[in-house]
């Protein structure tokens, strides 16, 4: 239905090629000819496509509930100017900018993205994007494995469980052993255990996350990192909520040499998990190990400023089996969205949003405590925290759901020891009414036991 050929065109083209029919061009060997009848719906006119898919969309009733879900995917406000700009056809229908002279706009936008990520993380250089936060961690781990020649990696249990799982998938391929640092009782990484671990084995890298999966801000500083650096392991900071970078001390300030993160929070729709946008930022000395595209600023043959894909000798299309990564298509359009988001909000806007997240999540925590539910930890948090509901979290979340509320994440899914705990998130979009509704429902469910 999107093909423009008239019969006259087809005839003229076949004549030019010198064959009788299109079939003569297909030349499929007899034994490979498709004989099965394909089990695919018959073609529909556009209005029916819309109707049919809209009907499917309506079955996603989860979007109509009051939600306190977070855990690596966040509901933030995206100004409409983002879509108006990013959905322009020039951006949307461009390929990877191989031909620099007709791709200056996109190349400049990626250069801006690399700059924003550096300014937010305090690092020297950032790549043009990787698939998401989890693969950013996995690819960063590979950077440290290649840099040190070591085949053992250490990751905190406070790092997002999905990221850790993907890290294992990637490390299995390279026969790299992954050890985990246990949690301290306060819901942060056990720094004593970290020091013991790095004293016992030679690790390529160590991945830490702050704010961690529980929302808690780990006390990471030069002291905490000393043992890691002394033993020659590369510290990696994992960022699952990029908005926190606007408020908290940069990973660079506490000694991270690589930052592996997810920037979905910067205007990228939740979209049931993707596409999102991962980033890897690092110090200058690791630039030649970084995976994926890099845009550099140069000049053209008349001395004018011009942008171009650069340091491509790292990449698969040049280096093949010796490339730093196999990544080819990345997340350019999501990175563009995030770049426009950051340009629109600017320093003031971003700080305001971060402050609102701190404020709303504290309002939520107070409401939860007032409902008679204990907070599991007492360390500072960013925009999410853990509530201990005192009985299997799934039961309480089910009862809340019956009241039109998605109360948060059941931590028992990943941490058996926290089976009575819920990860709750509030952002700038969380309203006081929603918080009040949750407070009332939680009180009824937990204190009274109604509906369980």
């Amino acid at each position: 239905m999107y093909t423009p050929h008239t019969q006259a065109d087809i005839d003229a083209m076949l004549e030019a090629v010198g064959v009788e029919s299109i079939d003569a061009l297909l030349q499929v060997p007899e034994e490979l000819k498709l004989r099965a009848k394909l089990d695919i719906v018959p073609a529909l006119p556009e209005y029916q496509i819309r109707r049919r898919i809209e009907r499917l969309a309506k079955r996603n009733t989860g979007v109509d509930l009051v939600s306190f879900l977070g855990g690596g995917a966040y509901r933030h406000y995206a100004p409409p100017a983002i879509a108006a700009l990013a959905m322009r056809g020039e951006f949307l229908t461009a390929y990877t900018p191989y031909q620099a002279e007709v791709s200056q706009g996109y190349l400049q936008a990626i250069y801006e993205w690399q700059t924003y990520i550096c300014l937010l993380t305090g690092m020297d250089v950032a790549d043009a994007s990787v698939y998401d936060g989890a693969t950013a961690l996995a690819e960063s781990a590979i950077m440290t494995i290649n840099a040190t020649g070591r085949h053992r990696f250490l990751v905190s249990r406070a790092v997002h469980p999905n990221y850790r799982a993907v890290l294992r998938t990637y490390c299995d391929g390279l026969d790299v052993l992954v050890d985990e640092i246990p949690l301290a009782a306060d819901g942060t990484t056990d720094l004593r255990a970290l020091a013991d671990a790095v004293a016992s084995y030679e690790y390529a890298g160590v991945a830490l996350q702050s704010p961690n999966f529980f929302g808690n801000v780990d006390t990471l500083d030069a002291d905490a990192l000393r043992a890691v650096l002394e033993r020659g392991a590369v510290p990696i900071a994992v960022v699952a909520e990029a908005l926190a970078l606007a408020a908290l001390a940069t990973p660079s300030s506490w000694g991270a040499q690589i930052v592996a993160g997810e920037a979905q929070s910067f205007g990228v729709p939740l979209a049931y998990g993707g596409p999102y946008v991962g980033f890897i930022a690092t110090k200058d000395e690791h630039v030649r190990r970084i995976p994926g595209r890099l845009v550099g600023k140069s000049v053209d043959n008349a001395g004018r400023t011009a942008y171009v894909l650069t340091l491509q000798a790292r990449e698969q299309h040049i280096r093949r089996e010796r490339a730093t990564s196999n990544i080819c298509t990345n997340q350019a359009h999501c990175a563009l969205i995030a770049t426009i988001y950051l340009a629109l909000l600017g320093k003031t806007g971003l700080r305001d949003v971060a402050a609102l997240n701190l404020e709303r999540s504290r309002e939520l925590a107070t409401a939860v405590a007032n409902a008679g539910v204990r907070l599991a930890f007492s360390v500072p948090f960013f925009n999410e925290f853990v509530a201990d509901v005192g009985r299997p979290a799934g039961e309480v979340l089910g009862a809340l759901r019956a009241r039109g509320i998605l109360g948060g994440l059941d931590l028992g899914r990943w941490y058996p020891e926290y089976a009575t705990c819920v990860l709750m998130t509030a952002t700038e979009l969380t309203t006081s009414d929603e918080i009040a509704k949750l407070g009332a429902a939680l009180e009824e469910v937990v204190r009274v036991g109604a509906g369980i």
Partner: protein
Amino acid sequence: MPASTLRDDLPLPDNTELDVVRHYTRLSQRTFGIDLGFYPLGSCTMKYNPRINDALANLREFAELHPFVPDELAQGALQVMHELERSFCSLFGMAAFSLNPAAGAQAELAALLIAKKYFKDRGETKRDKVIVPDTAHGTNPASATMAGFTVVSVKSDARGRVDPAEIRAVLGADAAVCMMTNPNTLGLFEERIHEIADAVHEAGGLMYYDGANANALMGNTRPGDMGFDLMHLNTHKTFTIPHGGGGAGHGPLGVAPHLVEYLPTPYVVRDADRYRLDFDRPKSIGPVRSFWSNFAHAVRALAYLYANGAEGLANVSQYAVLNANYLRVKIAEFLETPYPEVCRHEFVASAQSLKKKTGVRALDIAKALLDRGFMAPTVYFPLIVPECLMIEPTETESKETLDEFVAALREIVAAAQSDPRELFDAPVTTVVGRVDETRAARQPDLRWRPPLPPET
């Protein structure tokens, strides 16, 4: 929040919305997309991206759906994924697809990890070789390395095909996977694929199909029937998902029955009329991404599937092949085509003899095309063709557009023979001329830096 955990400065600029809108509108105007003109980039399938797909992907109930919403409240999204998966299985002859991989390269990696686990379970841990033809995409060998395999490269024959004898020569007890693209990157159909698959299977190895060129064969033949055990599809090529300047992509990974249980988690399962994400798959290689899929793209792909149906998809491939062959014979009138026979959806031309005569290279031709309002073809790939121009017109281009492109190319080749200086300076109509790539690599400037504060 203790002060020590906070940052003091945030060195970002504050802009007005008007400034931002003007800036990115201008940047868009300095970017060439399919919406502006013909984009014959070989192996990239730059076809028209229907707008209905974006409209549907952006529906609130999809765009605002959190990935941790319980399955029973996300039935529509799960059904989209399931329906798309079943359709892919039928169209490509596979037992199951995972929609998890974010792009083709990630699907390759996941597939090789599946192979690794499969052989480990069978106690065949000595299988550490991945066989890759010299015409393969660079991602194939790079993925093999990331999965811990050693790469064995196999030469193509004079007809641009992989000779089964060459494959047999490298097959042994250490052979794990043979990765093939069919039609290959020269646009030629590997008609002895069955023989190759049989040989690999006899040696105990697995066959992997790189689906970058799947636009050539829909409704005509299927990778599953050719003997492939694993495959990926680039829906951002074949299924009209916009490339967005280099992603996000979408790389569904298909497998034959014996490998289904190894697919990445989660996998969408249908129980009667309910759908769910299945995480409990003990033999799985594990997850490959933070969440389940580049889901918005699954919506786009499903809309495209609905728009075409089985017959429409077969037509898509037929017209893609017709357009490529038409361009091939027209271009052969003035430029070398090293494999002068019927091609599939793409073909290669070479500027080698033109370069010998005139000094004009494939790169100069590419840049001169930019001056004439066309995107350049893929150049210098595949690596085995000197001064290569790899051209893929796709089925959504009209004969008029193809004729205009041929005329432009003919004019460029004529200019090469009369007065090539214009071509060495090209492009001159673009916002910048040729970019100094050496300087970009030797003195990397990869970001803006805030000016240092004045010394006090």
